[in-house]
């Protein structure tokens, strides 16, 4: 069975894609201990069962709201085989922000470029293969309202799940100075296997720099925290 998580900004057509993929049949419950709704559905592609979890719609993956925390905790801890990032093709600039954060989380991302028809009507021309090359992830144009691109999306998800271990990880550069600092913190964090077993080290390092409340709580217990505190005044 392939485990897939759906994520995307609010109003990108995520629910519609969830319904298209699962045929509308979903098990609805709550995220453990939270009042946020959790929807899980299933579909089958060429004999392979795919379990689909609908994550809350978010613009970002900070620790500032419950929705964002739920989404990122699921990706980090449950480690779904594929994360389908639904991107509004008519509003790439805002939507790619979440995509970059997913890449930082080292999720196995497949982009569903939804509302492709709307983008074309607005006069946009999107170079899908170039976008795929630059981000290092498969990109599938979709039109959720007419079920367009759904078969292709399933096929791409199945393939991405199979090739999971071969995926290329693209690093986002924050400029030389910050990159060096991230690398330093990353090296310190890598000494603690308990951490790197669960969390991508570079992601942790970035979140430490952002003073992310949850991540600071996580590294608090690590023996390497003192070394990081000593390092920071160098900034």
């Amino acid at each position, binding site marked *: 069975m392939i485990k897939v998580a759906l994520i995307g900004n609010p109003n990108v057509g995520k629910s519609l894609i969830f319904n298209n993929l699962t045929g509308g049949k979903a098990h609805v419950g709550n995220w453990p201990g939270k009042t946020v709704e959790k929807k899980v559905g299933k579909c089958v592609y060429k004999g392979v069962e795919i379990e689909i979890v609908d994550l809350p719609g978010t613009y970002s993956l900070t620790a500032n709201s419950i929705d964002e925390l739920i989404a990122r905790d699921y990706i980090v801890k449950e480690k779904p085989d594929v994360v389908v990032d639904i991107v509004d093709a008519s509003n790439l600039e805002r939507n790619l922000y979440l995509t970059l954060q997913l890449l930082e989380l080292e999720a196995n991302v497949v982009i569903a470029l939804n509302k492709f028809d709307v983008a074309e009507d607005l006069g*946009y*021309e999107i170079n*899908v293969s170039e976008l795929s090359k630059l981000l290092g992830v498969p990109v599938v144009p979709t039109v959720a309202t007419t079920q367009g691109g759904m078969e292709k999306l399933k096929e791409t998800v199945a393939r991405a799940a199979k090739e999971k271990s071969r995926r290329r990880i693209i690093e*986002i550069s924050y400029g030389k100075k910050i990159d060096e600092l991230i690398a330093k913190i990353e090296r310190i964090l890598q000494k603690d296997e308990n951490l790197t077993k669960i969390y991508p080290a570079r992601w942790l390092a970035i979140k430490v720099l952002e003073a992310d409340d949850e991540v600071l709580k996580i590294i*608090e217990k690590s023996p390497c925290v003192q070394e990081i505190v000593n390092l920071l005044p160098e900034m």
Partner: protein
Amino acid sequence: MSEKIKELLGEEAEVLLAEKRYEVISRILPKVLKGKKPLTRSDLLDKAFLNKYLGIPVFLALWWALFRFTFDVSAPLSDLIDMVFGRLGEIASMSIQNEQLASFVADGLIGGLGSVLVFIPPIFFLFFGLAILEDSGYLARAAFVVDRVMYKLGLHGKSFIPMLLGFGCNIPGIMATRTIDKEEDRILTILVNPLMSCSARLPVYVFIGGAVLGGYAAAGVYSMYILGIVLAVLMALLFRRIIPYFKGKPSAFILELPMYAMPTLRSTLAHMWERGVLFLKKAGTIILLATVVIWALSAYPWGAVHSGDEPLIEASYVGFLGHAIEPIFRPLGFDWRATVALFFGFVAKEIVVDTFGVLGLGGAEELQQVFNPVTGLAFMAFTLIYIPCLATIGVIYRETNSWKWTVFTVVYGVVLAYFVAFLIVGIGGMLGY
């Protein structure tokens, strides 16, 4: 240890990293995206409404238009209701034989409650106008425009919607602060929300302003709303400065702007009714009950009050109460009747008007004996700022879950109200009033 890291980094690193991510995106976009989004009508409107320089003036102009609309359209209707109640009062006092019952019906029920019900038209028209702004999609833009200013002033951008709702009623306003993620930002927004002039205070402004401010009545009422906003901002700034709990900057937020749409009559009316009906419910319960209590306190002891031809309210229990508290308010130029009105207004602000009605000060001429333009304005300001109503205090306690913050809100409100009213009277005095 993590506290130390936070201290060393602040929030600057987070903002810097976010900016860098957008830089990465802006490098990717030209390589994959061709063509420019055509300007839709929505974009054109936004160019004006969200403009750096035009945004705020447009917001203030629309707000002013809303108030003019509210008062101009509702004035004849209010006059009509006023006339009907006046006539009813005369009929009641003539046709009811029992003296005490006649006084209860004419002075208490019709005089007191009637003076509040006159405000059904302005309140409903205000909500009607607000619903149009909301349904058209402008209100979210207003939030966006005001956020720029608010952020600089130390208030969270998401506080705008709770503050705006506060104009209707502080209770939904305070409850709407739940959308604010950071607890400090949220409590701060709750503390200053009562300064947003809710619709219950509107009757007081119209009542007093209409009687003593003459041609400047509408401007006086409008200025109360502005005063509330200015004070809310000043208090937020002050609290951020002096209360260690609120130190730091508000967190940033993203607001989705809905498409502009032509408001439909049906949904506009539905919105208006939803909020306006709360006023009717309040009039039928709390205000009615208060009317009875205030009438009783002002009509008894019966013998003392009704010894002469004209009832002497000063000899009643209300008279004792008013005279007892009056010295505190003497520097503000409020007499014992105004003091009593403020005292009962603690339950709900409309009761201020209700009390004047029961005390026989329902008309403009009578009110002019109590207030001059300056003390009238000071009284309006005091009503705006002091203790939010009883129900609001309850909600503040529930939402902050702390007696400390609840008591704090009440105390700072009264102190600030006294201070501002004193200032108005002082400045007015220098100008020769």
